[in-house]
């Protein structure tokens, strides 16, 4: 049983989401958007948080590569 590392998928998805949101937050935020979110540039901040999450998971996966147990004894029929 060889499973791929879930941490890298989390890092990929949130890295992508984070970057997109940061770009929206910096470049494409209208007054109306700001008003809706009580003056908070929520896309920017949420984007930054997601990039941080992605970096944490990527670092974890790099530093401790062992993820799932690779060779387990198959269970016998009970």
């Amino acid at each position, binding site marked *: 049983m060889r499973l791929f590392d879930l941490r890298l998928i*989390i890092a990929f998805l949130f890295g992508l989401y984070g970057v997109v*949101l940061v770009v929206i937050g910096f470049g494409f935020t209208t007054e109306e958007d700001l008003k809706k979110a009580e003056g908070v540039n929520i896309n920017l*901040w949420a984007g930054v948080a997601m990039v941080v999450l992605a970096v944490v998971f990527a670092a974890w996966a790099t530093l401790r590569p062992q993820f799932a147990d690779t060779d387990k004894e198959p269970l016998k029929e009970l």
Partner: protein
Amino acid sequence: MSILAEADLRLDAGPIDYALLLVYFVVVLGIGVMARRSVSSSLDFLLSGRSLPAWVTGLAFISANLGALELMGMTANGAQYGLATVHYYWIGAIPAMVFLGLVMMPFYYGSKVRSVPEFMRRRFGKPAHLVNAISFAVAQILIAGINLFALAVIIDALLGWPLPVSICVAALVVLAYTTLGGLSAAIYNEVLQFFVIVAALAPLTIIGLIKVGGWQGLVEKVTDKENLSAWPATELTGIDHPVWSVIGLVFGLGFVLSFGYWTTNFAEVQRAMSAKSMSAAKRTPIIGAYPKALIPAIIIIPGIIAAVIVPEMAQLKAGDTSSGVVYNNVLPLLMRDLLPNGILGIAITGLLASFMAGVAANVSSFNTVFTYDLWQDYVKKDRPDEYYLRIGRLATVGACVLAIGTAFIAAALGGSNIMDYIQALFSFFNAPLFATFILGMFWKRMTPTAGWVGLLAGTFTAIFIYVISEPSFGIELLELPGQGASFLGAGLAFVVDIVVSFGVSLVTRPKPDSELGGLVYSLTPKEDRAHSTTGEDAGWYRSPALLGGGVLALTTVLYFIFG
């Protein structure tokens, strides 16, 4: 249809929101394709080869429960009952999750059974097994259909796709990744979904809190001040007397209902069974308990906020139903009012992901019970493993097709009522099941006959209480609005099951001790219940007992602060 009623909930989703949603679906299907390569036996497919680390199974454990019912229902409860809703988490989940990890998991994982019904078969034999396996399989298909229906309703409301199209598209996506990757794909997506849900709800809560002027502002603006204290929760329980209300909460919700649900529902326990070691299996529900204790902050608080800042919700709270909005609409309304494009796409993704993971959890636990407990035990025995792997895949297809069917039935019968009935039905089985399990695990004298007789007696008791307290049956001997009736029903079902099982055991013949090793406390050597403390299981921070004590302490502290 009452989940989303007639109110206009269409969100102003732009191209970027759709793009973010699309990315998620691509990743989900990609997980299915990648997980397929790791599947070479039925156990890989149905139990992830028992190879997953505890943090993965732990997050999946709570995510499997974080579906449509939970998200819509608990935000709605937040708006309607306020802080009392925390009881569903702090009393209604945490103690049971710790108990499952520390007390029951040694038997589930240690006996190497592949499902909860299989434990039933080895402890009590076939009659009890068959009752449990069939009722579980049927309930999962019904609930999968209802989850699918709720998912389709939200797609319809948010994005404007017609109901039948959304039902089929959603079912196809779930089918695709669960048939390809089996439980691993389902669990991976549950973990992913957990983070997306947090990413969706946290900004909503933060902006909402800023809008009402922080926690202090919220406390001042809430009109119904009873919504700000968790005790004695008389509105929630429907029991007027405060002392009885608290007793109902602690014993009904906290003990019988929640222990029944969390410790015997295979859709949950399956996540722990797929962990890579006894230590990881014990830690699974306990690790899940930490986010479970904290998540009310981003589920219940938005509900309370919505009752203050969403105009339609405030009207409803004041008794004016003219806007057509119902409490279940809290999340879409808040998203509409607070989130700009971009983060709105993440929030829509989070909602859909959560609903979809709910369906996947139903389907992936159904196919295991169907394959191992029904097909292998009663239809075709002793075939090579590839055969059962194929059956597992076919069962997944069958489950999705049946769920589409039950989704249309739910649509025809009209949404949220049927959801309540199914939940009630399911609770008929859970409370007695817990009684039977707990007695069977700790009393070796309990006999196979007592196993199924006790179960039936308990279930009939719960049904009886339900019938005499449900107004729509017209024989309302007990007047208990709110949750009171189900607390009482579950409590009595538990007691009746214990008493009947005890009585029947005294006059029937028990199984010989030699057949009960690993299944009963007194006949399982201590070392078989213990977990390893070396290698991947080493370190004080991986001690299940310490982690369990930690989360109980955390919950107690939270009760002191917010209770």
